[in-house]
């Protein structure tokens, strides 16, 4: 589904690259973890894969089409859904309004369907009252579920998540990991999770390790 060719990234000096000449492939229905030490470039890699930034070298192709040619805004709107460690919800809106807003922007098949939004939020364990509340009043775990629900209603085939369990306790972490597994296995999405938690990485189908300016598969997805 998503392929990188000769991918490279650096900030000021090409000699001080974070990584270069990276060739990767991410398949539908597979949950991949990106792990590595702090500063190894995990989040940068995720930004590139999510279309939030442009690579310094190489290309990223979605279904064999260069996302730069597709347009990063267009790519983000139709093909990728990003979940952040800080949730990044619209704090002045209710949980349901957050989902409906995302559905409208991404032109989801269910856009405007409040029942569908409620259904998704209900699946993730939110009560009717919590759905109507502004998300600022929800707990961290609840907000993360709203963020995941938002990615579920957006029809994107690719889901990328930056430290989605970083702020959660053990029970909530497992619940969130299970949800990602559902996204991959039940909905057939390609799920890429940046995490520093080995326990989370262990439950993924594949693990990509970034270390010392190198990118390597620690565990390859089975094809």
């Amino acid at each position, binding site marked *: 589904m998503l392929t990188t060719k000769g991918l490279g990234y650096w900030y000021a000096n090409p000699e001080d690259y974070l990584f270069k000449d990276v060739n990767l492939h991410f398949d539908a229905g597979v949950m991949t973890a990106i792990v590595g030490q702090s500063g190894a470039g995990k989040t940068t890699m995720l930004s590139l894969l999510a279309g939030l930034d442009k690579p310094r070298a190489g290309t990223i192709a979605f279904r064999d089409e260069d996302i730069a040619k597709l347009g990063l*805004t267009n790519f983000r709107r139709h093909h990728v859904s990003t979940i952040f460690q800080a949730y990044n919800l619209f704090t*002045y809106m209710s949980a349901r309004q957050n989902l409906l807003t995302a559905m409208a922007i991404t032109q989801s098949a269910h*856009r405007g369907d409040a029942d569908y939004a409620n259904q998704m939020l209900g699946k993730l364990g939110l009560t009717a009252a919590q759905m109507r509340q502004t998300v600022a009043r929800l707990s961290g775990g609840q907000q993360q579920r709203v963020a995941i629900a938002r990615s579920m209603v957006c029809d994107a085939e690719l889901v990328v998540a930056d430290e989605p369990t970083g702020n959660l306790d053990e029970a909530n972490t497992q619940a969130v990991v299970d949800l990602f597994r559902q996204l991959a296995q039940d909905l057939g999405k390609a799920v890429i999770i940046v995490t520093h938690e080995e326990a989370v990485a262990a439950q993924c189908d594949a693990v990509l390790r970034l270390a010392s300016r190198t990118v390597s598969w620690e565990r390859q997805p089975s094809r």
Partner: protein
Amino acid sequence: MVNLLWMDVIHVNFIKRAGLTLVAKKGRTALLVLVTTAIMLFVLAGLLIRNAANTATATAKANVGATLTLSQNRAAAFKTMRSSSQSGSKPTLTQTPVKLSLAKQIARIQHVASYAVTVTTSANASGFDAITTRGTTGGFGGRGPATTSGDITISGVTSTASATAFNQKTASITQGRGLTKADANSHNVVIESELAKQNSLSVGDTIKLKATTGSKATTTLTIVGIYKAKSTSTGMPGESDPANTVYTGYGLANQVKGSKYVNTADNVTFTVSAPSQVAAVKKAAKQLINTSKYSITSDDQNYQLVKSSMATVSGFANKIVWLVAIAGTIILALIVILMIRERRHEIGVLLALGEARWKIIGQFLTELFVVLLVGIGLAAAGGKVVGDQLAQQVVATQTTQSATTGQFGRPGGPSGQGKQLPGGGQQTAKTNQAAKQTKLATHVTVQALALLFALGLGIILVAILIAAAGILRLQPKNVLIE
């Protein structure tokens, strides 16, 4: 079962987001409304004052009198007198009254609305007493055209309404009626109230006047009206008390003056319907008269005074509009820039979801548009109050300046028109009248609100365009991840 909110069912777009933001962030919305209202209020006040000044100028064009006065060319008469003096004879100033036939010719010129004839002479009271003031030696030597003076001044007019004193409200009819065109050759008279009181005269009574020139005949006149003069004697030696002025038709005044004055006038005042045409009418009139005998002078200073005052007020109002609009744009732009900085995170989330940048700008524009509508509504409610207050201050300043110029900066009126006040006093009266006419009445009109809306829209568009640079440069990664 979850109750659905109507907002959730409607297709969510940037307009709805704008609505949600305005409702959710009440404090910020209130602040924006406050600032926008203040800007709109002052812009509207400026527009209202400008409109009022323009209306006042237009009204002045229609109502403030502009006149032309046809009278003897005194400068030429004095020149003739000096040349005859050099030849050895006693210097005598030859009077050349204006022929009414000439006045009728001039009256046919386009834009001349009407004309009023003035004949001034004097006669002695017969069977009643004129009012004497300290220093009066009998008569009012030098003021009238005749060299021999009586104690009663006869002001022969076309109608009392056209006489300067009545026209400028320094005299008004208190009993009976004023004189009209029909009284031109009648024996009707309007006398001053003090003169009437002193002699126990009332409307319907008769008085007798004995001419001091010509046949020196006695004429009996019927009192048809009594007027009250506001002016008083200055007490100057030789000056007759204003109460001794009686008004008659100009035909009768000419009879009293002498047979050679029939169908003549001391001066004729033409009212020009369009003050802006005074110069053109004057030019046309000059072609009809013998300029060595007659002179024609224009008096459109009331119009010019109002026009000048209103031009200044209008200019000031324009400055208010532009200064407030420019300052408002800068203030709003700064607020929007700060607002965008504060909402970088929200913009980042929208961009991460794939929202188009123009829609994000559209959301901010919609928010400001709603704020603008509320601001205009509030400004419309308070605009008249602020406009009136501001206009009052501006006009007060302007009128003081104009009055000062009128009283000290210009010479008195034409000598031929001096009736009750010396030249300077007459000038002051005219200036005050013009000053009264510069009072502005502001009105909130649909046109003013439409213009305000257009200006307000321009202000928020410019403010958004300035602030949009921040949105166009923003990268979601920088906001959401780093």
